[in-house]
């Protein structure tokens, strides 16, 4: 009996609608399922942010349009204003939805699924059934999260970090069943993440096309590989923290409750003996690597786009890979920098400061190498490139503001202030979402077989760039003034009075930022159905996905390609006089000798 190599196996193309679009094993379909679901959550998470901003700028005022319709329900008070509890619920759910149900599924689930097999010359991922399972765990977990909005007392209100005892004792915060649902949803989505991560690891290790050595792997795939290591090793810690918290809440154990804890004026009734700071250690052991899960894949996306539109190989490819690997290793030993004022032994603060300061180094190397790639390029400023260079520009700001936090004495002052919000959003909105916009416009032709409108793309880029900076840069000023985050209103604090005009300005900028996204939504949805048909290789790219036709066949490659060169050999002498790119899988001409250093 003949044995078929896994890589050569072609699973039969499903014919009916259900197996083609719903319960599909095809990595491309699963990628699209992740894409649409996470984009819907992006709209939800963004809308919650708009309500948050309204309350901060105009505390107690009726929310326009919906406030009067939703009095005394959801997040609203009797006058249609955002209530103090509603404010905390909005902030908590905004954070949780954006991190776990938008960014991670978008950049790992959608881009990882769609691109990894195409980039490594494979017909699918190693375990297609597990891949489907990963999405079908993510979707119900998202629905569970969504259900929390509708239960008695509303969703969680203890912040996305859910620190106990606040998140632990129902009487301490408003979260009742909603908090339990959120914890259950995180557990399920974490499981989905681990399943997906293991699948990607095996796929990249085992299914690379002949000739696709590690040194020739596109940076998108390298980034996904390193992210998958993070996901597989760190996510179980989230499950551990969440399970213990859930046990505390449901079965009244005391993992995180100390002796003699009160709720209001009454004793909590718990046995005690637990320790609240333990949760922070376990949570951040996951959540700091999670921050890199939120950025590493987009570093890969941006690298691909920047090399393609600069028409140059990536400057310092090896350094780029080593940097990402260093970020992974260091990423596991910096969690304590979130806890400098938590009551943790200050000696540990010293150790975490040192590791944190030095994680800036590989990030810096990456920035230098992106700039080096632009240097002496032949830069085509198309919409995807504008988004990608904005990723770099915003990552520089987000990275530099992180240095303030690494310095423990300075962090003591700016910890839990708007400085942190500014820093975090420069990284996960400024950098990550710009790279996502870039990635979507860049790979749109391959995903949907059509082109997005270039002019609308540029207008959207310009407005997003402008309003994003107007909304988030002033938050550094607020942080410097000591403005705490998570305040339903700052009007009770005298020392924050002078910052009120900034709060209003930030809110108006955030609204403009939100409205600007309508342009992208229109461009995206219109182009899916009515955009002009895309050629197989509209950007003159050299990686493997651009060698296959649109729409991409269910089995991707008729023949598994053989790879002869690295992913970004743009403008190489090998390209010849008429073009400046050469596909990875194009057989070299007889007698061609690759240039030194390759």
């Amino acid at each position, binding site marked *: 009996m003949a044995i078929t190599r896994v890589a050569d196996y072609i699973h039969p193309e499903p014919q009916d609608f259900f197996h083609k679009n719903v319960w599909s094993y095809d990595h491309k379909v699963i990628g699209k399922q992740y894409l649409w679901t996470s984009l819907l959550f992006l709209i939800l998470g963004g809308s919650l942010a708009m309500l948050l901003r309204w309350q901060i700028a105009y505390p107690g005022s009726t929310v326009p349009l919906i406030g009067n319709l939703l009095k005394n329900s959801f997040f609203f008070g009797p006058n249609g204003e955002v*209530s103090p509890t509603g404010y905390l619920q909005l902030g908590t759910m905004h954070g949780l939805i954006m991190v776990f149900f938008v960014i991670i599924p978008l950049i790992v689930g959608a881009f990882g699924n769609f691109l990894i097999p195409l980039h490594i010359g494979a017909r699918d991922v190693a375990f297609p059934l597990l891949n489907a399972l990963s999405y079908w765990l993510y979707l119900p977990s998202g629905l569970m999260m969504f259900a929390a909005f509708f239960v008695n007392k509303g969703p969680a209100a203890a912040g996305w970090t859910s620190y106990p005892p606040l998140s632990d004792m129902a009487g301490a915060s*408003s979260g009742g069943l909603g908090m339990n649902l959120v914890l259950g949803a995180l557990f399920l989505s974490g499981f989905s993440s681990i399943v997906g991560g293991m699948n990607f690891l095996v796929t990249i290790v085992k299914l690379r096309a002949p000739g696709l050595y590690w040194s020739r792997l596109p940076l998108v795939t390298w980034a996904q590989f390193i992210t998958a290591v993070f996901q597989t090793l760190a996510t179980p810690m989230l499950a551990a923290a969440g399970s213990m918290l859930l046990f505390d809440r449901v079965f009244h154990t005391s993992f995180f409750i100390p002796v003699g804890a009160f709720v209001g004026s009454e004793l909590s009734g718990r046995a005690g003996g637990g320790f609240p700071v333990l949760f922070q250690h376990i949570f951040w052991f996951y959540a700091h690597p999670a921050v890199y899960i939120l950025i590493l894949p987009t570093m890969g996306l941006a690298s691909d786009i920047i090399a393609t539109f600069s028409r*140059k190989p990536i*400057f310092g490819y090896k350094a780029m890979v080593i940097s990402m690997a260093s970020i992974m290793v260091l990423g596991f030993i910096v969690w304590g920098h979130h806890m400098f004022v938590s009551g943790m032994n200050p000696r540990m603060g010293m150790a975490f*400061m040192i590791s944190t300061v030095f994680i800036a180094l590989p990030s810096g190397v990456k920035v230098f190498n992106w700039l*080096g790639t632009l240097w*002496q390029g032949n830069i085509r400023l198309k919409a995807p490139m504008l988004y990608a260079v904005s990723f770099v520009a915003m990552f520089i700001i987000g990275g530099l503001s992180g240095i303030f936090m690494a310095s423990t004495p300075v962090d003591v002052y700016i910890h*839990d202030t708007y400085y942190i919000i500014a820093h975090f959003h420069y990284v996960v909105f400024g950098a990550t979402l710009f790279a996502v916009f870039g990635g979507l416009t860049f790979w749109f032709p391959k995903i949907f077989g059509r082109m997005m409108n270039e002019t609308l793309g540029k207008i959207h880029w310009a407005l997003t760039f402008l309003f994003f900076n107007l909304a988030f840069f002033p938050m550094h000023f607020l942080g410097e003034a000591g403005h705490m985050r998570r305040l339903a209103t700052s009007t009770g604090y005298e020392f924050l009075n002078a910052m009120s005009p900034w709060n209003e300005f930030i809110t108006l900028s955030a609204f403009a930022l939100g409205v600007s996204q309508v342009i992208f939504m229109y461009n995206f949805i219109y182009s899916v159905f009515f955009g002009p048909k895309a050629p197989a290789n509209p950007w003159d790219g050299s990686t493997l996905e651009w060698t296959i036709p649109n729409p991409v066949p269910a089995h991707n490659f008729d023949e598994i390609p053989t790879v002869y060169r690295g992913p970004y050999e743009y403008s190489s002498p090998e390209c010849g006089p008429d073009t400046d790119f050469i596909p990875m899988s194009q057989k070299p001409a007889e007698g061609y000798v690759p240039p030194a250093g390759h």
Partner: protein
Amino acid sequence: MKTMTKFLWLAALLLAAPLAAKMPTAGPGWFSSEVVSSMGRDTDSMYYVILVIVTVIFVLSEGFLLWCLIAYRARPGRKAKFTHGSTGVEIALAIIPSLILLYLTVASAKMWSDIRFKPPKDKDAVHVQVMGEQFAWNFRYAGPDGAFGTADDVLSFNTLAMPVGKPVIFHLSSKDVIHSFFIPEARQKQDAVPGLLGKVWVTVDHMPVWNRETQKRELMEAAEYEAADVAVSGYDFKNKVHEGKGMFFQQASSAKINLLDYFYARNADPITSAKGGRLAAEPKYIRHHFEIACAQLCGTSHYAMRGEVLVLTPAEFEGWMKSQPADSELKSKWDSVWDKFHPEYNKIL
């Protein structure tokens, strides 16, 4: 399509224009507040050192990026330089930031050691126990017997008195959830965690600038708002919680008053304004010099967990300690929470 494009750009500008009008202009109160301790000044110096370094890196890197986009934009006939990088340049660009980061680490480590490892050894240091609760701060000073948890302890609710020039050592914990004890003017912050006794210290080295004139001016401005009483009718001042969802927000907003102005008015005697007529009231004493904030999300009324700091001369401080009335309600709180479950917290002197 061209008309459409122009229209879209125009619409984009129209969206941006009103924002320009709303851009705040620089004024007092921007950026960090007055700093009152030498440790705080050190923190500020470190902040500005980092600010200078990152500003230089920011300008160089963003400038280079912009320059590349312009200088190397695609033009007919141009071809990009084919290179995979330069090991020399990469090593140089890794070593320079490493040295900068090394400097920042050493400088920060020294300062961290000062602010967290070396508590003041001054025998005159004032020790204060701080107990956070939803949503207020409780303070306890050892009385004349020099021990905590005894009958002569001095208790205070939401007001912290600090003698100028003397180190004040805070021993922090919490009754219920995690709070974060934050004095912006001292650049000091530490979580108050249930089940854990934290320790930080502050020495206020001069009397703050805040003065009676500032208070008086603000008070007279506040008095112009006749709706002041209405605006805060739903507000329980002692516990700083509002009654009824949203009532406080709505009323404060509709009356257009600053809640703090009302705080002054409550502690004041009638006076006559310069223009004549009974307009406002003058505070009997300086109500407070700066504020204590809670920086950790601690529940629904987290935004209202505000305390006050009174900076006094050592003599005034002694007077203040003696003048604090015995408060059985406060004492029973300390007895039933701190002393009953954590008697070891009292063995700190």
